């Protein structure tokens, strides 16, 4: 009887909570590039794309859904934390890019000197000799 009474409450709570969770995960309220959340136990904040580390923020204290205001060539992402613009290393955060990320490919075969850019392993033109 008690269980029967609880079920609608749990269902209602779930229906109410799911959109909120979804919204915080994909940060749909932010247009363009966005930092969704911290990925590593600590996130380092830098004063410039190749600059000095200002401080480290623990994963649970790092804000979610931050708009990326700039993207450096080395992929450092500029966001505003506590009202100040800082740069975060992309590997330390979960982020979302508006466009397609530039792909990474390599000319591994020594003897050639032509280099192309593609996805990391994906979309690379294949050659004969694949094992």
């Amino acid at each position, binding site marked *: 009887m008690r269980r029967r009474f609880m079920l609608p409450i749990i269902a209602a709570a779930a229906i109410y909570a799911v959109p909120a969770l979804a919204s915080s995960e994909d940060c749909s309220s932010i247009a363009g590039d966005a930092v969704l959340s911290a990925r590593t136990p600590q996130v380092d904040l830098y004063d410039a794309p190749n600059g000095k580390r200002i401080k480290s923020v623990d994963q649970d204290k790092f804000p979610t859904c931050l708009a990326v205001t700039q993207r450096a060539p080395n992929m450092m992402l500029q966001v505003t934390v506590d009202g100040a613009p800082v740069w975060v290393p992309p590997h330390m955060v979960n982020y979302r890019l508006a466009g397609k990320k530039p792909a990474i490919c390599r000319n591994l075969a020594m*003897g050639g000197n032509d280099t192309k850019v593609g996805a990391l392993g994906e979309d690379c033109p294949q050659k004969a000799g*694949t094992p």
Partner: protein
Amino acid sequence: MTSPALNSPLASVTRSWERARRPNRDHVEKLKSRVPYWFVALFLFAFSVLQIELNPFGFSDLTQRYTQDISDLLITGPFLYPTTGREQISVAVIDEQTLHGLQMPWPWNYGAHARALDAIRAFKPKAVVVDFLFVDMRADESIAELVDEIARYRKAGIPIYFEGGNDLPFGEAPIRPEIARTGVPILDPTIEVYDGVVRQYPTTGYCYGTNGLVAGQCPSLALRLYKDLYKDHPPAPLHDKIELVWGTRTARFNVKFNSGPLPCNDDATFLVRIYRAFFDKQSAVGRCPYNNEIPVEALMVGDNDRDLNALLPGHVVFYGGALQGAQDKSFSPVNGEQPNVFVHAMALDNLITYGGRPQQNVMTLAGYTFSNNSAQAIAILPIILILSYMHRRRVRARERRVDRSEHGALYDWFMDKGIENLWHWLAFLLAIGIGLLLASWAGLSVANWAQDVFLSVELVAMLLVGAPDSFWGYLHHVAGGNPGDTFPEATS
């Protein structure tokens, strides 16, 4: 009755000298057939030892190295060497494209290295080896970030290793003291290069403490890693050098990732591969590294690629450079030029694959380890004993045929030719068989084995031209031997 003057030692020496200068050819010919077994064996063994020890014209070295290359290219690499080690190792490299793509020119500051190492740490590797020498005392405050990163690795329980310099030209410390003071393990990055090609790997290296070089011998880089990380299969006691076995089957990821104008390997059937290995070696070697190569760029941009998730977690990751002009590249027997970080990776690969018992240039028999040359000399000994015995029988048989003359000259000629042919094959098979036994029982390396096969052919050639017999006949003659005398050898 002879006069005392004729029997004096001086007269005897004079006569010997005279025989040495003007030997009686008939006497020498007859005495040749009385060559004893022990002399043939001793003669061949002395020849072998000279060949092995003196390495005339570099012939021994060249034979060994060439055979090792062919073996790697044709047999061990493509067919015998499993991918056990490769599945546990990845190499993250800073290459020119990484510098260009990230617009971070070389050299990187310590903070950038710290970020790269942090990106690797995010994938929870088994261990990380930093294949850069941090020696120069340049002003760079970001070294504190690198020191912090070492602490983060320690906190995460992920072993991280750095490398120390040695024989530095201006007496610099082997590594920045800030890094050494963290107590991080510092390893010796020395490798063995022979004519620009890496076929061997050291088992020992310099030791480093928090104040730089310390006295004593420590395990080489790959061996230390293996000892620390694979405690379930501790390495066998290793001496001298590891004979590296280079895999030829390029990692699938590298093949997929390669987008240059050339493929990683040229497709070829087994027969074509054999032809190329012998006559066009450049077309038989692979162009891509055997171990998985990950550009640091992919890590720095925070890719959550499924390949990275397959290649980094739980792997031993080497973090090194593939930069033009860095003078840190060498050839392998099965690859074109590649960064030396792949040499360390391959050495660890060998240790993992062979469960701590890699191929070595030494041989262990009854608990005693023989050096490279001694191993070859010991391996050739049974071949010599058998060949000498067969030769002795052949000489006696020939002598009997000449005495009795039961068959015609044509028959004898064909018999001799037939035996000569059989002789070559016998030596080959003997050397291969004994080498195989010693390889499986005592760890004789392919290089030493091949050297003995070549040597056995030389020995047969010497027996066919009758070198030990002629030498015995001459010596016997000079010593005053008389063809008319009867010797136990002749009657046996």
